[in-house]
C-alpha cells in the first residue's frame, strides 16, 4: 500500500492528468482530440488484454470479438428509436423498443461481452497454449461470421452508422483511469498473485492450491468486460460499427502493442498502446501518397501494418520482453531518486 507521501504524489499526478485533459479538450482541434481518444481506447483495450495474455499467461486472440459484441450492444441501445426503426426495420420488438443512456449502454456492452466470455470460456479455458490461442481465434471468426450474417440486427457487412457521438475525452480517460486502478489493485491482491503463479507454471500453481479454471475465468471475463466497453467507446467515437473493424488485424494490433510495451506489465501495456498509436499515425501520410522534397511518393496502402509487423519481428528477436519487460512504474523508487 502507499504511504502518505506517495498518496499525495499520486493525487497530484492525477490532478495534473485531469488538468492536461481539460486543456486538451478546450484547445486542441478535432483531429488531435480524436487521436487522444483513440489512444485512450487503445490503452483500455491493451490493459484489459493484459489480464489474460500478460498476467495469467492465457494467450487470447479473441479480444476484437468481445469488442464487437460490446460495440453492437451499445449501438442498439443508444440509437434514437425513430432512427432505429428506419435503418433496422426487422428488429425483434423488444430490441426495437430498447433504449438507454450512454453510461447504461456502456455498462450493458461490458456485461454482454463478459457473459459471452463466461460462456465460451467454460469449454475453451481448459485448453492450453497454442490450442487456446486457436480456439479464441475461432471465437473471433465465429463472431465476425454471425455479425455479417444476422443482418436484421446488425445490417450485415454494411454496419450500423449514425451512432450518437457520445464518446468524449472524459468518458475515455475516466474509464482508462478506473481500469488502471482496478488492474493495479488486482495485481496486488491474492487473485492477481494466483494469476501470475499460473503464468509462471500452471502445474506448480495448481499443486499449491490455485484454482486454474477460476482464475483464468476471472481474467478472461474481466478482460472481455473492458473489451466490450472499449468497443462501445470506439463505436460512439467514429459513429459507425461494422464487422471489419473487429477483425483479426485488430487482434494483431493489440498483441503488438502489448508485446512491444512489455507483456505482463500494466506500465508496459500503457506505453505500448501510446507508442504504437502515435508512430503509425505519424506515418499515415505515406499511406495516402504525399510529396516530400519534390519527390512524389505514391500511396502505399498497408504501410502501417508493414511497420507494425517489422517492428514486432525485430522486438521479438532482440528484446522479447518488450520496452519495460515485467517491471512496473513505481512511485517509491521514483521518489527516492
Amino acid at each position, binding site marked *: 500500500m502507499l504511504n502518505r507521501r506517495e498518496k499525495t504524489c499520486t493525487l497530484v499526478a492525477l490532478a495534473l492528468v485531469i488538468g492536461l485533459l481539460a486543456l486538451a479538450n478546450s484547445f486542441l482541434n478535432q483531429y488531435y482530440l480524436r487521436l487522444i481518444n483513440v489512444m485512450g481506447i487503445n490503452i483500455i483495450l491493451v490493459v484489459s488484454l493484459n489480464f489474460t495474455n500478460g498476467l495469467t499467461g492465457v494467450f487470447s486472440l479473441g479480444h476484437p470479438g468481445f469488442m464487437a459484441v460490446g460495440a453492437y450492444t451499445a449501438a442498439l441501445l443508444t440509437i434514437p428509436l425513430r432512427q432505429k426503426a428506419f435503418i433496422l426495420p426487422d428488429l425483434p420488438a423488444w430490441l426495437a423498443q430498447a433504449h438507454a443512456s450512454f453510461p447504461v449502454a456502456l455498462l450493458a456492452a461490458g456485461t454482454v461481452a463478459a457473459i459471452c466470455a463466461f460462456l465460451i470460456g467454460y469449454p475453451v479455458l481448459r485448453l492450453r497454449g497454442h*490450442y487456446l490461442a*486457436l*480456439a479464441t481465434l475461432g471465437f473471433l*471468426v465465429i463472431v465476425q461470421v454471425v455479425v455479417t450474417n444476422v443482418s436484421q440486427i446488425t445490417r450485415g457487412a454494411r454496419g450500423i452508422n449514425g451512432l450518437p457521438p457520445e464518446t468524449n475525452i472524459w468518458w475515455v480517460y475516466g474509464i482508462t483511469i478506473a481500469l488502471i486502478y482496478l488492474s493495479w489493485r488486482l495485481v496486488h491482491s491474492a487473485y492477481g498473485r494466483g494469476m501470475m503463479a499460473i503464468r509462471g507454471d500452471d502445474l506448480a500453481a495448481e499443486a499449491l492450491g490455485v484454482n486454474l479454471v477460476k482464475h483464468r475465468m476471472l481474467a478472461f471475463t474481466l478482460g472481455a468486460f473492458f473489451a466490450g466497453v472499449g468497443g462501445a467507446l470506439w463505436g460512439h467515437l467514429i459513429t459507425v460499427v461494422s464487422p471489419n473493424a473487429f477483425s483479426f*488485424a485488430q487482434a*494483431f494490433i493489440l*498483441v503488438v502493442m502489448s508485446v512491444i510495451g512489455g507483456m505482463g506489465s500494466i506500465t508496459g501495456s500503457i506505453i505500448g498502446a501510446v507508442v504504437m498509436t502515435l508512430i503509425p499515425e505519424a506515418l499515415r501520410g505515406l499511406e495516402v501518397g504525399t510529396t516530400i522534397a519534390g519527390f512524389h511518393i505514391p500511396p502505399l496502402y498497408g504501410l502501417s501494418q508493414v511497420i507494425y509487423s517489422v517492428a*514486432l519481428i525485430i522486438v*521479438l*528477436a532482440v528484446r522479447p520482453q518488450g520496452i519495460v519487460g515485467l517491471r512496473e512504474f513505481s512511485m517509491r523508487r521514483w521518489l527516492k531518486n
Partner: protein
Amino acid sequence: MQRKGFERVSGTYLLQQLINGISLGSIYALVAIGYTMVYGILRLINFAHGDILMVGAYSALGLAMSLHLPFWAVLAGSMLIAALTGVLVERAAFRPVRGAPEEVTMITSLAVSIFLENLGTMVLSPQPRKFLVPDYLLVIHNWGGLTFNNMTILIVVLAVGLMLALTLFVTRTNLGIAMRASSENLQAAQLMGININRIVATAFIIGSGLAAVAGVMLGGQYGRIDPLMGFVPGLKAFVAAVIGGIGNIAGAAVGGYVLGLAEVLLVGLLPPSLSGFRDAFVFIFLILMLLIRPVGILGSVERGRA
C-alpha cells in the same frame, strides 16, 4: 465447387458434393502438410503459411504473364519461388526466436503473416487480379448429371501424387528419416548428429512448395487472386492439421479431406440461408474437436499438449 441452389437431396447431388468436397479437401491437405511438418519439428504454429500460398499464386501469375511459360513450368516455378520465400522467412524471422516460449514464436509468425499480406497489398495493389489457366483445364465433363472440369481432376491427382512422393521421401531417404526423427525428439536427433537447420529448411521448402500448388489451384478454380487470399484457407488448413493430429503428416492429409468434405456437405445439405455461416461451422467443428479429442484423429496421446 460451383454450388447450385438448394435442391432436393438426390443421389447425384450428394455425389456432386462429394466431388467438390474431395477437391477442396485436396487443397486443405496440401496446405495442412506444411503446417504439420513445421509444427512437428519446431512446435511453431506458422500463421504465415497461408500467405506463402498467396506468394505461390502471384508468382505463377507473374511467370505466366511475363515469360509465357507452359502451365507445368509455371507451376514448378511458383513452387520454387514459394520455397525460397519460405526458407527466407525461416532464416530472417523464425530462427532468431527458435527455442523461445511458444507465445513468442506464434506472435512472430503472426507478424510475418501480416507483413506478407500487407507487403502484397502495398506492392501488388489490393485489387484482385484475374488468374487465367489454360483452356484445356477448364473443359467441363458431364457424367450423368455430375459435372467437373479438368482442373478438379488435376487438383486431386496432383495432391495425391505429391503426397505419395512425400511419403516415399520421409520413409525411404536419409533426409526424410532424419526429419521424422527430429519431429519425434528434437534434442535426441541433434545428439545423433542431425543438422537441425538443414531439417528445418527442408520442412519449409517442402511445405511452401505444396502451399504454392494449393495457391495455383485455388486461383485456377476461382479465376482471381488477391493479397489476402491465403488467410482463410491457411487458417482452415491449420484446423485440418489439428483435426488430423498435428505433427503427423498422414494425419494432416486425413484432416484435410475430413474438413473439406465436412464443410462442403454441411453447406450443401443445409438451407442456403445458412450457407453464409460456412466459416463459423469450421471453427465450431475445431472447438468441438479440441474438447473431445485434442490430439486429433491420428495423433498420439503423448504428443497431445492440450
